[in-house]
């Protein structure tokens, strides 16, 4: 059976407040999907629900046929990694330690990381082109660099699906392109599938193969050419 993340008749929101109604979709490997919509439309809620951080109100999300709500956190993190749009009160931890934490779900040494875990983390830093930051504390680097560190941490997780909430929000134009390019390369070489939300229509039209357009509590799937319609 082909590996896929499937969303069936999903209703999500907080408590009784339903933000997304009856959404179904399938995400195969090596796909890049952009979630587009206005502020407060429920994009982040949808991404949190898909990554298992928020329980769905109704409906089911499965990875390779397994319902994600039936998996414990570590097992779920082996399938799905996620990157938040912003982390408040960044601690005084060095970059390499933060990226190595991404190995928590996959390492066979959950209590104390092995040198192999650190090697994987170094490789992810190299892929994100931030090896030079390795020994810097994450509270001493820029927001854009921190975002790259968090993506490197998600890559270290070696999950097949990566959920990113506005990954380029704090990046300059050069860094935006470089991050999306790296994710695109990962998609082609490692079979990674990326679901990301963004307000940057240029990035969306350049990199996304499919678009989930969130409007009025419903999600409509569109092709990449939809961005031109939106611009008009």
């Amino acid at each position, binding site marked *: 059976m082909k590996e896929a993340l499937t969303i069936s008749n999903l209703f999500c929101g907080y408590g009784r407040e339903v933000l997304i109604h009856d959404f179904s979709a399938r995400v195969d490997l090596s796909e890049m999907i952009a979630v587009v919509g206005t502020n407060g439309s429920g994009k982040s809620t949808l991404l949190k629900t898909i990554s298992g951080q928020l329980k769905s109100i109704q409906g089911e999300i499965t990875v390779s046929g397994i319902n994600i709500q039936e998996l414990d956190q570590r097992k779920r*993190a082996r399938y799905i990694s*996620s990157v938040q749009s912003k982390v408040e*009160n960044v*601690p*005084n*931890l060095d970059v390499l330690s933060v990226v190595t934490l991404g190995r*928590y779900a996959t390492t066979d040494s959950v*209590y104390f990381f092995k040198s192999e875990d650190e090697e994987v983390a170094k490789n992810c830093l190299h892929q994100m082109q931030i090896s030079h930051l390795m020994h810097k504390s994450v509270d001493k680097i820029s927001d854009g660099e921190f975002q790259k560190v968090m993506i490197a941490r998600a890559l270290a997780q070696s999950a097949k699906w990566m959920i990113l909430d506005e990954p380029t929000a704090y990046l300059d134009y050069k860094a935006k392109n470089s991050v999306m390019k790296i994710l695109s390369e990962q998609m082609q070489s490692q079979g990674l599938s990326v679901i990301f939300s963004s307000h940057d229509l240029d990035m969306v039209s350049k990199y996304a193969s499919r678009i989930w357009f969130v409007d009025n509590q419903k999600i409509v799937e569109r092709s990449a050419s939809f961005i031109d319609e939106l611009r008009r």
Partner: protein
Amino acid sequence: MMGTISIPFSNLVQILLDPDLAQNGWNYIIWEIRFPRALTAFSCGISLSIAGLVLQTLFRNPLAGPSVLGISSGATLGVSLWLLAGGLGLSAIVSTAIAALIGSWMVLLLLIWIAGRLRDNVSLLIFGIMLSFLVGAFVNVLEFKSTDTALRAFINWGMGSFSHTGWTETMLLLLAGIIILIVLAFMVNPLNALLLGDDVAHSIGVSVKKNRIIIILLTGILVGLTTAYCGPIAFIGLAVPHIGRMILRTSDHRYLLPVVCAAGGTVSLICDFVAQHLVDGGLPINTVTSAIGAPIVMFLIFKGGKNKT
């Protein structure tokens, strides 16, 4: 190993190495008074400091500590009920500990119940502070209604002291501290992940809920036992983790945990030494920990410019 009676260093070594040959009075002072007291101070320092460290990590708040969350107040309530009821004729060693543990567990059970319903730790912290006030008010009512003898015993205990413990209490404190320290050593990765926030910890596969409950339970044991035998000790739990971060310049628990542990024991011993020697007749330990701890926290806040967990 210092006190009002001076014992030469050479005799101290002899007493420690070969107690049978030493002068009986000195032998008693060292083995039954000073050594348990020093070990108690060291163990309490370790317990309160590591409790403060993991609470600050869990709540991602530099102001979190055993006393702030109401855990110390819970233990105080338990002990005050026991003391003000006249001790009920039970063995003090066991019953004070049980009373403090029941008190802290009551607060903790409430915190755990609330923790399952509140997603963010700041709300939980505010809840803990309010709980602390509420329990404090209840203790005040108990004090008001108690007899003079019971009230004196309670006030004496409430000032905090490392001198009321014998070997049994000392060994219990030390054992609990060591076991919990070992458990926490196996939790350094989840603790580091929690520093990045609940959402990040969750996304890398750390069960936030499970770790939150483990931390609260372990903290309850550390604070409950310390409070039972030495009274509510202020500021060590809050200040020492900051000292550890200042020394190491990192929040990484792999390094912070052993350093905070050593610093906690040392600071506690220094505070006890100052409490014994600053004025004739000695000072309550809480006076010293507050006088030393509060300026340290203030200094760190001014020096750092920003608070870090």
